[in-house]
């Protein structure tokens, strides 16, 4: 790395003592580049393997990489922590203004430890760090936005990030998210709950600086090429135009979109919630993360009348994408776009992870139908496919409810189904709820073995798509899952948004890295990716993750996927191969 680069600076913040200090970690950033590579090292250093995720010892680690602030679509921040949802590795990525703000503030990583005795928020403005009182921001009612209040208090408009939690985070719902810039999230695995456990309402970061490159002329050239490709390339069109929600219809034709907890492949009127319908009826604005020209964030408008006052309306803007329409639409049998948007609104207001929330609701609905849970437990609410109003009430109960059952739902359905039954149809993978692809073996097994149990770990749906054309055997599927996940570690060290992955090929990445003072070969780069992957698995296993007990939910085998009905013995063989491969790497 370039010697003067501030990337090597790690900002440590102790919420208990209200102290902060900076350490230069050239060792970490030169070996593991940045982002997820540095973050996982910092997690090993700062997080005891057997600690309670809600204890003050659980660190919150944010990390960025050398390409952030230098190249377009290098726009993401990696967050790692011990997950209260799964009990092992918590990792989530988000964009918004965060990555550029942290880079411009002059850091490569931020480590937050301890617990504040009162609600507080942290404001980081370049080399200054302030601990601010947030007692009045805690427990705010809907309608008052903590984000807006903080916006008015803090400098750095336009360039700063404001990461904050909602009621779900305050109440430590294990799948609470952290919201950035209103529309972006560290969604999965419960970072919001870890914020809540620390009495940390928000983190604000801002700064402004110039960075160094090894050769300015070449830098400008590479930058220009990347920008042109991002604008013109067909590879980007899907994100540009309809956004990821363009996948709703194709995946519905191929039976790849999960519907009603995977009870059926049929959903009449699914076209009402397609990307095309959303664009036509609701698309109100497109926005982008800092330093990304793609602008994949699609904001829908929802016009809501005031019930008690005629001729008064309010218009809310809500971001939507494929995963949200799946989790709060098809999975719940909701086929009106307004209905999906109303659910998105309450999920945003509460500060929950949308995917987990949708899958929790779909499990509750089926469990209720099957008599696994009763009306008494749901405090009189009767969940029903497609019934948006009841779902809204249930979401609020998950956060605010006082009954034992709703208390339990705050820990996700792995826990709830272990306690009440209904495991066969609890769609969880390593404790995390299912993403929106029932495309074949690779999708499901990818969630199961992905270090963060996300569809983004190895993009199994893309492997399934390949398998639809040319069948793959067990060994091939297993190999593809691991090599894709290893490669993605590189993207998330830099930290490039996965939507730019087809443009950031190995050669492009090596050129960019050279300009930031990293002279490494292709082989070395791939080796680093694999090392990071192994390091993540080491953390998981040391914190109690058990490879031998991993299995797929029974439901997965009961309904045809995009590649047909899945066979358990075939899946089991892939699982066995992956187990052995991972063990041999450790």
């Amino acid at each position, binding site marked *: 790395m370039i010697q003067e680069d501030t990337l090597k600076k790690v900002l440590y913040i102790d919420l208990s003592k209200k102290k902060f200090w900076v350490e230069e970690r050239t060792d970490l950033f030169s070996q593991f580049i940045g982002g997820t590579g540095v973050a996982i090292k910092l997690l090993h250093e700062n997080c005891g393997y057997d600690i309670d995720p809600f204890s003050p010892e659980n660190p919150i680690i944010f990390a960025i990489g050398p390409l952030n602030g230098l190249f377009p679509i290098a726009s993401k921040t990696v967050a790692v922590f011990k997950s209260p949802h799964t009990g092992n590795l918590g990792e989530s990525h988000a964009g918004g203004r965060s990555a550029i703000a942290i880079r*411009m503030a002059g850091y490569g990583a931020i480590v937050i430890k301890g617990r504040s005795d009162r609600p507080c928020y942290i404001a980081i403005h370049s080399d200054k760090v302030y601990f601010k009182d947030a007692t009045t921001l805690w427990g705010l009612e809907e309608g008052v936005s903590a984000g807006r209040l903080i916006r008015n208090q803090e400098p750095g408009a*336009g360039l700063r990030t404001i990461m904050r939690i909602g009621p779900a985070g305050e109440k430590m719902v294990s799948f609470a998210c952290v919201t950035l810039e209103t529309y972006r999230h560290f969604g999965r695995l419960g970072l919001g709950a870890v914020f809540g456990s620390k009495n940390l309402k928000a983190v604000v970061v801002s700064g402004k600086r110039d960075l160094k490159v090894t050769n300015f002329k070449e830098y400008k050239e590479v930058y220009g090429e990347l920008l042109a490709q991002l604008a013109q390339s067909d590879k980007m069109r899907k994100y540009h135009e309809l956004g990821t929600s363009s996948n709703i219809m194709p995946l519905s034709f191929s039976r790849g979109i999960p519907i009603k907890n995977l009870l059926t492949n049929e959903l009449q009127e699914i076209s009402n919630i397609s990307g095309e319908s959303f664009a036509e009826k609701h698309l109100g604005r497109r926005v982008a993360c800092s330093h990304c020209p793609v602008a994949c964030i699609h904001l829908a408008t929802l016009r809501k009348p005031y019930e008690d006052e005629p001729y008064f309306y309010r218009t809310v803007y809500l971001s939507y994408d494929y995963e949200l329409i799946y989790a709060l639409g098809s999975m719940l049998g909701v086929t009106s776009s307004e209905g999906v948007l109303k659910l998105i609104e309450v999920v945003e207001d509460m500060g929950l992870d949308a995917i987990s929330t949708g899958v929790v609701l779909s499990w509750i609905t089926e469990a209720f139908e099957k008599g696994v849970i009763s009306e008494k437990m749901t405090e009189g609410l009767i969940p029903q496919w497609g019934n948006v109003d009841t779902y809204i009430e249930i979401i609020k109960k998950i956060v605010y409810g006082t009954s034992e059952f709703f208390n339990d739902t705050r820990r996700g359905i792995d826990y709830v189904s272990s306690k009440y039954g209904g495991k066969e149809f609890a769609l969880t993978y390593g404790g995390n709820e299912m993403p929106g692809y029932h495309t074949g073996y690779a999708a499901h097994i990818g969630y199961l073995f992905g270090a963060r149990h996300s569809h983004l770990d190895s993009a199994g749906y893309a492997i399934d798509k390949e398998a639809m054309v040319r069948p793959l055997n067990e060994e091939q599927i297993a190999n593809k899952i691991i090599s894709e996940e290893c490669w993605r570690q590189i993207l998330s060290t830099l930290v490039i948004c996965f939507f730019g992955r087809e443009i950031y090929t190995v050669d492009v990445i090596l050129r960019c890295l050279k300009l930031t003072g990293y002279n490494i070969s292709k082989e070395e780069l791939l080796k680093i990716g694999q090392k990071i992957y192994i390091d993540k698995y080491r953390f998981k296993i040391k914190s109690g993750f058990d490879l031998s007990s991993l299995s797929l939910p029974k439901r997965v085998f009961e309904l045809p996927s995009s590649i047909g009905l899945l066979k358990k013995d075939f899946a089991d063989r892939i699982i066995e191969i992956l187990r052995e491969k991972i063990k041999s790497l450790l």
Partner: protein
Amino acid sequence: MPVFVRDSEKCVGCLICMFACGRAHLAVGLESSCIKVRSQGGISRGFSVFVCRGCEDPPCARSCPEDALIVRKSGGVLLKEDRCTGCSYCVKACILDAIGWSTIKNKPVICIQCGECAKSCHYRVLEYRRI
């Protein structure tokens, strides 16, 4: 040949123009950028772009006590850095908020009317126009 804001309603807030302006000032990053993009009080309300319109009779130059801002024939101003004392009067004089500030140099960042910001905007929010 200044840059005009054609339609800020289309602005997605990507800041690509700010980074382009940095490069136009031979830098990497945002410190040496004079164009600004800010949300209109929350992202859902969209963005505003603040960029120099190359005034023919520039108030920024008139406000400079050191004559460090030279009026260009085609509009806008040129910064004579050695004369500038870093008083920031010019920043306040520009009602468009189109002057940047480098805290490192403690000097203003002045638009050089190069059009790089407009050329790199994918959404044609900005237009580089001959007048």
